[in-house]
């Protein structure tokens, strides 16, 4: 009886500990983000107040200034948002088309040196953005596509293709090859079999690969900060720096822009989270 009691107590203690640890983890994950959101609604005076003010007041000033054009510091947030959107959407669409065709090749065809090609492609993804930005800066300047949407789109396509291949390869491999065989016997050409059968079946997987690519472009900083200079092409991550002056930082404004940046990302991710995990693990585990 005593031993049963001891085990029961231990179990209870472990349960409490488990709950506490989980709560702490979630707090650490959530608080920084929430802090940003909170501060985007607080007046600057209150953010800077000493001693700290813990009961927040509410203001939309930062958002008003941000969307009001030349408001706080005159940061043209809307232009940055538009640039980010154009660059991310276009580069994602192209990267998905190219990556999907590559992923399909890896999933469906046998050829010599397949795994070396695969690793090789991944290695190009591993090249650090900063290291790549130096020569790209020079080359793009020579070709005359620096500081343009086109230049940045091109870079992001190249950046996203390898990982898109990884993901779509995994998704296509989950589809039994009999499916396209059946479609071909049912009268399809290979091309039709792909678009009518394999693509619709892999659709959700492709969508999550697309969102992954979108997020990479949307969030990228190292390359964008060197390849874009003007209001006409700067993306939001680069624009974030506009709030930093030599010695002062407009924290409230930055927070508001941060919220604007993170919101689309959060929504998109929320939609595809399940497929995302499946794609990553499948692509990796079944090599």
């Amino acid at each position, binding site marked *: 009886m005593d031993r049963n009691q001891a085990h029961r107590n231990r179990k209870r203690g472990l349960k409490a500990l*488990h709950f506490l*640890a989980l709560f702490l983890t*979630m707090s650490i994950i*959530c*608080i*920084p*983000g929430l*802090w*940003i959101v909170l501060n985007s609604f607080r007046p600057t005076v209150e953010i800077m107040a*000493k*001693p*700290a003010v813990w009961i927040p007041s509410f203001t939309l000033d930062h958002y008003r200034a941000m969307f009001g054009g030349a408001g706080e510091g005159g940061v043209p947030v809307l232009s940055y948002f538009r640039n980010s959107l154009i660059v991310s959407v276009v580069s994602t669409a192209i990267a998905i088309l*190219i*990556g999907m*065709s*590559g992923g*399909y*090749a*890896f999933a469906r*065809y046998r*050829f010599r040196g397949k795994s070396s090609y695969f690793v090789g*492609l*991944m*290695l*190009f993804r*591993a*090249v*650090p*953005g*900063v*290291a*790549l930005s*130096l*020569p*790209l800066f*020079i*080359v793009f300047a020579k070709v005359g596509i620096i500081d343009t949407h086109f230049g940045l789109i*091109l*870079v992001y396509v*190249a*950046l996203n*293709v*390898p*990982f898109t291949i990884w993901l779509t390869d995994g998704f296509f491999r989950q589809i039994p090859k009999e499916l396209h065989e059946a479609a071909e016997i049912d009268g399809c050409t290979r091309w039709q079999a792909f678009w009518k059968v394999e693509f619709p079946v892999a659709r959700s997987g492709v969508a999550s690969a697309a969102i992954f690519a979108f997020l990479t472009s949307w969030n990228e*900083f*190292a390359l964008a900060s060197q390849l874009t200079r003007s209001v006409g092409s700067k993306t939001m*991550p680069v624009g*974030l720096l506009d709030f930093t002056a030599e010695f002062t930082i407009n924290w409230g404004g*930055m*927070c508001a822009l*941060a919220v604007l*940046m*993170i919101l689309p*990302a959060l929504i998109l*991710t929320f939609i595809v989270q399940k497929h995302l995990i*499946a794609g990553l*693990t499948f692509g*990796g*585990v*079944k090599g």
Partner: protein
Amino acid sequence: MFRRRLPEWLVLLLPAFIVIAAVVLIPLIFSLYSSFTPYKLTRPSTLWRWIGTANYERILTDAKFWAAFGRTVLFLTIVLNLELILGLCIALMMNKVTWGQRTLRTILMFPMMFSPILVGFQFKFIFNDNIGLVNNALQSMGFDVALPWLVDGKLAMFSIIFAEVWMSTSVFAILILAGLFAMPRDPLEAAKVDGCTPWQTFRHITLPFLMPFIYIAMTIRSLDVARAYDIVQIMTGGGPARRTELLWTLMSRTGYVDARMGLANAMGYVSILLSIAFTVYFFRKLSAARAELGMGG
């Protein structure tokens, strides 16, 4: 038919090859070349002067470079290990949760969505010595301190590591959790009946099964270790007095601030090799672990 047709797989892969060659390979070749010249942005003619391996000799004998290199390797080692251990703990905890697991998993994915630059900024704000959340909280609790989180060398390194771990632990946690979900129950139950303690079960059954998932996470992470550049750049810019200088910030300073492209490209090559070494290492481990568990295909 007069011309031989390319095999289908090559046609499908060709666009990928072309884009990557144009955007990555050609610039890399260019930068390889320029790393053998004293190229300065301000004096274009210097691009045509071949100086052999002088740049490499220079960085290899430069104490500042080695300090940054060593710090980068140390930083990566600490960060990756911390992320792995924390990610494993979080995944094991999440696996035991009986309700609300979906919600918790979604929350867990939040940091993955943050732009590294945003993470840098966010923690720069939180660790600000004057108005940051941490110091404000400490002061409100009665400690009369203003810890110089981003100014003191050691604290700054800690802050950066904290930010990096905050951003990337999720990758490990999520993938290891996926592994735990995929884990067959029978061996676990067999081990229990055979008298294994929870620790033994974990050590001999669970962990080996999770290894491929851990290596996938490692591989994915190693693909973009250099994202830490964004964080460091915005939080400390490599300062104070170069005490958080990593390979990448040093390189960008040399290239863009000092305009010494040749030298910077030489450093770039070292950093590329470093990244590639990490990626190849984990890819290898991944294939080995896969083969061991018979998951190849």
